[in-house]
């Protein structure tokens, strides 16, 4: 399968990328790893007249400590992350999530910027990044801004990026001491895509949950936080009963996707199961688990 014809540029440096994105605005798409975009182009579901390759902008690579966390360039591949023990050591849950994305070859190309900018309703990484309270760095010819990932993905394949803007980096704050994380994914066996994926990041002190961030993917039109679960967890114990009661709230108000892979009822069931398992594992990892 051949994509429709297009012109290709690989601008040298970020400023040149901004200029190109601005200049070709409507007809152009940026390409990062191409692991989502090229399959769509081969199926002619995407037919951009111009591809702007981000690979020539070295500014989009690299991992840096910031005063409050870690900043990861948008072009960081899943594979690079898997081989970054320092970053993975600082950010619980990230390594476990990346390991269940796609396969070795796809992880070698797919980038974290693409994972967030694509707005795929089944993308794994955004769930964990939501639970880790990631911020999205956005740049354009007009300047830079930073927004919370929470709210950035607005719908199926749509985000809060304005014309001319690209994702330049993701910044993740370091979680407080006593935090444990887990990612639980029930996948469609052939595609590996999530039917329900749940990321949990819990901070536990003497058997009591002090802070909870829980997010899901694969179930609705966008990855999003499960705030009812989070609220129920704060101040509760980490007993199986308490965690199960909180997990039961995961399905509250959720309008699930309905496709050939799973019925809405089945997705809701998987959501609750995955939430319970993620909470149990995260609580155990946070240490100090109380016997019920």
């Amino acid at each position, binding site marked *: 399968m*051949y994509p429709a*014809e297009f012109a290709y540029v690989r601008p040298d440096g970020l400023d040149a990328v901004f200029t190109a994105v601005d200049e070709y605005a409507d007809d152009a798409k940026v390409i990062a790893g191409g692991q989502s975009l090229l399959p769509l182009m081969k199926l002619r579901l995407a037919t951009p007249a111009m591809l702007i390759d981000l690979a020539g902008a070295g500014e989009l690579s690299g991992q840096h400590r910031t005063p409050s966390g870690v900043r990861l360039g948008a072009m960081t591949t899943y594979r690079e992350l898997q081989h970054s023990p320092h970053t993975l050591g600082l950010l619980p849950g990230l390594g476990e999530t990346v390991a269940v994305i796609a396969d*070795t070859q796809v992880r070698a190309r797919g980038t974290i910027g693409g994972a967030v900018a694509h707005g795929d309703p089944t993308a794994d990484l955004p769930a964990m990044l939501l639970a880790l309270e990631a911020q999205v760095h956005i740049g354009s010819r007009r300047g830079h801004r930073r927004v919370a990932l929470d709210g950035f993905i607005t719908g199926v394949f749509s985000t809060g990026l304005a014309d001319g803007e690209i994702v330049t980096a993701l910044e993740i704050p370091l979680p407080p001491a006593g935090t444990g994380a887990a990612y639980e994914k029930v996948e469609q066996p052939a595609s590996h895509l999530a039917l329900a994926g749940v990321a949990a990041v819990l901070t536990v002190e003497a058997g009591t949950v002090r802070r909870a961030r829980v997010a899901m993917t694969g179930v609705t039109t966008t990855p999003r936080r499960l705030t009812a679960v989070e609220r129920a967890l704060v101040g509760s114990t980490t007993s199986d009963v308490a965690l199960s009661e909180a997990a039961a709230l995961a399905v509250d108000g959720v309008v699930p996707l309905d496709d050939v892979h799973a019925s809405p009822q089945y997705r809701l069931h998987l959501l609750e199961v995955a939430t319970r398992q993620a909470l149990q594992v995260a609580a155990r990892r946070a240490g100090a688990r109380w016997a019920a």
Partner: protein
Amino acid sequence: MAQVQDGTDVTVSLQVNGRHEVHTVPARTLLVHHLRNTLGLTGTHVGCDTTQCGACTVELDGTAVKSCTVLAAQADGSSVRTIEAVSRGEDGRDGGLDHVQQAFWDQHGLQCGFCTPGMVMAVRQLLRDNPRPTEDEVRRGIDGNLCRCTGYQNIVAAALAAADAEAAM
């Protein structure tokens, strides 16, 4: 690298199996078609053409990728190794089957052979990342590659045998 070109043709400069190759092709040319059609290296196969099967796996700057999902233009400035060069040493001379190929032969790790070039590339990547994998790690490590014939059992055996052979070196 980083050449900027307008228009729908691009000049792609690659190091393929140690040879410098410069060709002007339509920008929409996939790396796999560039290798097979422009360069005549037909050992790399197109199976699914949808990033699922791994038959098109090659090493791009030393890392296994699915060449049906990389543009030749994206690879510009890089080096590529295909199955044709796996048996060749750094000096370009043919040294016979490499450990992974030999293990596929010994363990009967192929039937029709269609998936084999990609499987060999995937197993080589697996062993670079993890020289002593468990059976479970092998199965996970090559789950980007599909085989319609073998039922995988002998492919997994081949990967484990190749790891043994490399460890014994």
